[in-house]
Structure formats: C-alpha cells, structure tokens
C-alpha cells in the first residue's frame, strides 16, 4: 500500500516535471505554452523589404517560419541573430530554429516531417544531403509550405530558390586568395569536414579547378577529412603536416578547419610567418586567430545577411511574389587590415 502510494506520487511528480521541463525550455525565445497567436490585423506591421515584387502590402497575419540548419554550429549563429532581430522588427513572424545534432541526415529528415505535420508557413533549409532531403522538400511544397534553401542548395526539388554562397565560386575565390598570399608558388594541404556535404564538395572542386587552370606552380599536396569533429580534425591535420613537412599553406574547407589549424599552430609555436593558414568563415575562433597573427586570411561568407533574406523571401512567396532561383550573397577576403570594417 505504502509503495503503491509512493509510485503514484512519483508518477505524478514525473508528469509535472516533464510538463515543467517542456514549458521551461520552450525555445527560440518562445514559451512552449504560448497562447494561440492573437489576431494582429489591427497592428500595423513594418513593411519588409521586397525581394523582387514592389509595392506589396506588409504581411499582417501571423506567420510561422522554420529555419533548419545542416548541423548545430556557431557559424549559423549570425543567421539566427539576424533572423530573430528581423522577425522582432516585423512583429508578425514566429521562428522555429532546428538542426540535427551532428549533421545526421536521418534526424534532419525527421525534423522536416515534424515541420510538415505542424503545417508551418515556410521552411528554409540547408540540407545535410541534398539527394536525401529532396523528396522531403517536395512533400513540404506539396503540403502547401513555401520552401527555400540556403547554405547548401538542393537543386533537384520543388524549392522556390536558393540563397547563400555559390560554393564553387567561393572555392575559386579561395584559390585566388591562396595564390595571392603564396606569390603564385607553393604547396597546400587541405582539410575537409564531412566529405559528402554538397557545399564543401563544390568549394573543394572550385579550388582544385582554379589551381590546375591558373596556378600550375601551386600544388595541392593532400586533401583529408576530419568529419567536422574538432578533435579528429586536429589529429588528421597533424598527420598531414608530418606527411607533408614542406607545405606552405593550410586551408580548411569547412567549419572545423580553422580551429584545428589554430590549435596545431599554437601547439607548435607557429605564426603566419612560419606557415600560412588561409581558411573559410569568420567564426569567433577564426577572427581571434587572425587577430593573434596565426591566420593569414579568411574567406568569409556573408551569413549575417541570410536571416533577413530568408524571411523576406518567404514573405514574398507567401504574398504571391517570386524570388530569384539563385541569390548569391558572395564571399569576402578578411585580413588583419579590414577585420574591423569588412561587414560594413
């Protein structure tokens, strides 16, 4: 009898604890038990900047958009910050930010299925695997949800458009930056993250093609993968350095490359005067590495603009407008000279 009572108390406690946990952790600045959106027809919403259509009335009804990243990574923090700030400015946008923990394709598919059953108004997704995600993007579009892609495109599907970096062109630009800093001659070692990730494959291809065509005196000595794992990336980079001691420049293709380079350079007491690191992305670690004289140059994407562009694009589509199929936000070289001004 006593144990039965204990059990009932514990089950009740469990129920309350679970409910509390869910409510307390309601994400993206929203509470999970948030009441249904109140009608906001009377509240004038600030007008968003149109993507292509002009003189569209500002969307007044509440809209729910999901942004799905390919992986949880600080690279996407500026996207979240930009989107949340813009959503707050507009006043009628609810944002759901989701990402699979470790770039898991299956988990990203599950997120897509859940968003479709939630009947959100729009989804922006950076696919972990474009081939695998394409049918699920089509399912969302067939269910009446507007879908755009960013970061990594999924071209063979019904998505309305892609925004972000044209990764092959970013690779071409990276090759030019490397050549400039090496004076057109030297050896390069390259670290990939996840070798199946479409955007990284395109960047690598852009570098390889440009080196082969325009800089015959620059040799790509080795290309290896760290699978986006920080510790493994350091290990692989160290092994590459041992195998290619005469290299002149290390380049990271994905997010793990820069931090791995900084860790190895610090451990060996190197600076950019000894060996060069020229890598992608303006993450906090890379910026710190640039300021510390370890990194020579960054080729940075303009992801701080993506959040606003995503919301504008989804608004335009829901208002019946069209968006460009490809919206290249470009890349920019960041060095110690322009580190404080490049975002202007």
């Amino acid at each position, binding site marked *: 009898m006593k144990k039965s009572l204990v059990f009932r108390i514990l089950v009740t406690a469990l129920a309350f604890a679970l409910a509390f946990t*869910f409510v307390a952790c309601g994400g993206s600045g929203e509470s999970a038990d948030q009441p249904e959106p109140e009608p906001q027809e009377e509240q004038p919403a600030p007008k968003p900047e149109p993507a292509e259509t002009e003189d569209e009335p500002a969307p007044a009804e509440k809209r729910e958009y999901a942004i799905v990243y390919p992986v949880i990574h600080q690279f996407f923090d500026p996207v979240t910050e930009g989107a949340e700030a813009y959503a707050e400015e507009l006043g009628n946008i609810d944002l759901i930010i989701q990402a699979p923990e470790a770039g898991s394709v299956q988990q990203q598919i599950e997120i897509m299925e859940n968003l479709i059953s939630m009947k959100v108004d729009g989804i922006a997704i950076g696919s972990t695997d474009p081939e695998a995600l394409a049918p699920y993007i089509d399912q969302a579009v067939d269910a009446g949800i507007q879908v755009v892609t960013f970061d990594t495109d999924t071209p063979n599907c019904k998505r309305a458009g892609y925004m972000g970096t044209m990764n092959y062109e970013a690779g071409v630009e990276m090759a030019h930056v490397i050549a400039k800093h090496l004076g057109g001659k030297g050896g390069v070692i390259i670290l990939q993250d996840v070798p*199946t990730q479409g955007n990284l494959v395109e960047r690598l291809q852009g570098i390889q093609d440009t080196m082969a065509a325009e800089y015959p005196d620059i040799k790509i000595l080795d290309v290896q993968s760290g699978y986006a794992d920080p510790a493994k990336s350091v290990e692989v980079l160290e092994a590459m350095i041992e195998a290619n001691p005469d290299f002149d420049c290390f380049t990271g293709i994905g997010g793990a490359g820069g931090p791995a380079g900084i860790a190895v350079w610090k451990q060996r007491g190197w600076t950019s005067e000894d060996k060069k690191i020229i890598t992608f992305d303006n993450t906090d670690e890379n910026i710190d590495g640039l300021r510390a004289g370890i990194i020579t140059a960054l080729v940075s994407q303009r992801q701080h603009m993506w959040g606003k562009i995503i919301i504008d694009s989804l608004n335009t589509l829901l208002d019946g407008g069209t968006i460009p199929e490809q919206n290249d936000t470009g890349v920019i070289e960041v060095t110690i000279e322009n580190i404080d001004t490049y975002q202007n």
Partner: protein
Amino acid sequence: MFANSKSINTTRTQEYFKFVFRLKETRLFLFLLVMVAIMAVLRPDTFFTSQNLFNILRQVSLITIVAVSQTYVIISGGIDLSVGFSLGLCGIIISYLLDAGFNPVLSILAGITASVLIGFVNSLVITLVKLPPFIVTIGMAYIARGLAFVITEGFTIRVTNQFVSGIANEYVGPIPVMTIIMLVIVVIFSYILSSTPFGMKTKAVGGNIVAARLSGINTTRHRILVHTLGGLLCGIAGLLMIGRLNAGNPNAGMNYDVDSIAATVVGGTSMTGGEGSILGTLLGAVLLGVIRNALVLLKVSMYWQTVVAGSIILLVCSVDNLTNKDRK
C-alpha cells in the same frame, strides 16, 4: 458463501492487477501515456493528427529494428557498437550495386550478407579470441564506416529503385510499410525470445554463462548465432534506410549504436544480460521517438533538445527503478 466467493474474486483481481503492474512494460506504457497526455494538453492540434502519429511510427521503425538486434545481443551478455555502421555499409553496398546496374535481388542480398558477415565476424572474435564485445564491435564499426567511404569516396549514391524506395516510403492504408515490417519483426523476435528454446538459451547465456555451459548449452555457438541474427536485422534496417534516404549515404547509421542501446535499456533490458523483452524495447524506442517529436512540436531550442531528451530518459529510468518492487 456468496460474499466469500465475491471476496475471493476481488482478491484475484487485485492480484492480477498487481502482477500486470509489476511488469516493466506496463510501467513503461504508463510513462508513454503521461508523455502523450502532456502533449495532448500542450499541442492538441499538431500532436494528435494521424500524419504526426504515423510520422512517429515511421521514425521509430528503423531504430526499433536495430534495437531488437541490440536487445538480443545485450540479453546474451554482450553489446554491439557496430550496428549503426553495419546497417550503413549494407545500404552503401546495395545502392552501389544498384547504381552499377546489378540485379536488384542480388544487390539486396549482397548488402544484407555484408551485415550478417559483420555480426558473424564480431562473434567469432568475441568467442574465439576472447576480446571484450565492446572493443571488438567498436573496431568493426570503424572498419564498416571506413569501407563505406572507400566504396563511395565520400559521395552519396542516389537510389532510384522503385522496390527499395517503396518499402520505405509507401503505405498500406494509413500505415507505413516500414512500420508494418518493424511490427512483424517485433512479433517474431518477441515470440522467439519468450517462447522458444533459443530465447531461453539466450537469457541463460547472458544470465550466467558458466551455469549455461554446465547445463549443456553450447554457449559459443549460441553467441555466434545471436550476433549473426543481429547482423541480419541490421541488414534489413540498412535496406530500409537507403529507401528512406533515397540514397546511400556513408554517414547513414550515425548514432544508431547509442540510440539502440538507449531504447533497449529504457525498455527494461538489463545491461548485465539475462533479462529483457522485445516489447519493452519497442516501447522504449517509441518513448524516445515521442520525446524527439515533442521537442520539435514544442519548439524547444535546438541547443536544449539533447539535454531535455537525456534528462527525460534518466528520469524515466530512475522513477521506474525506485518503484520497481523486484529491484534488488
């Protein structure tokens, strides 16, 4: 006399309910009901739609099949950390052969055979070389994942075969085919475990391998059979995986080792072997699936989702252990 008979009936009913309540599966089912009740209150419009409920069932199908394999291995006293990449390699082999124009039946058989071989080799090294299962299967996981990358060179292989795509994505009425396959596997393997000499031997080997050997069970042969059977289930999961992804992805299967162990343990299987049930594993997998689904529907921050999921698993296991009258 009539009153006396009524009293006996009441006592029997109470005893029956006590017995049912003492079952791990019953308690787990109650936890599941609590979760569902919370979601019914918080998200009545989005959680209780047939689309969402079948989403959950489809999403847990693959992990349940892998967890059934894991349950057998754990009950027999082992652990298998190669399940994820075993199914991944199976999928890669099938998609590679299909892409190269091989006969679909032979391609599927080749892929599943690879997973069966992985289970077989695991068990040979464990039983003959006498290395701990943890080490053997983690080594095999590396090999399987590496081979997947060797075959694909890191690229995804698109799968266009209608049969492979159909078994993962089609429905019979409102029920996904993949879910039906999972339920058939659960019923068959549950029956084998609970009602056949093979199942009883599995529990005996995991409970006390010395006593099992002394009682006449060929423990080496039995462990080889359990791992090989587990490989077969991973192979089936690998086939379904490439249908679901419409592609062979060398990263597919990532985290399935940990997730399958979580479903098995939440389902009441003892990590020290000897006891457990397939029904419990199914409930464990569904509970984990409901949690994952709920976290998205409730818009829980992506940074918090893993923390919340892990906390709920710990809470469920702790409450169950504290209220389990049979615990030692």
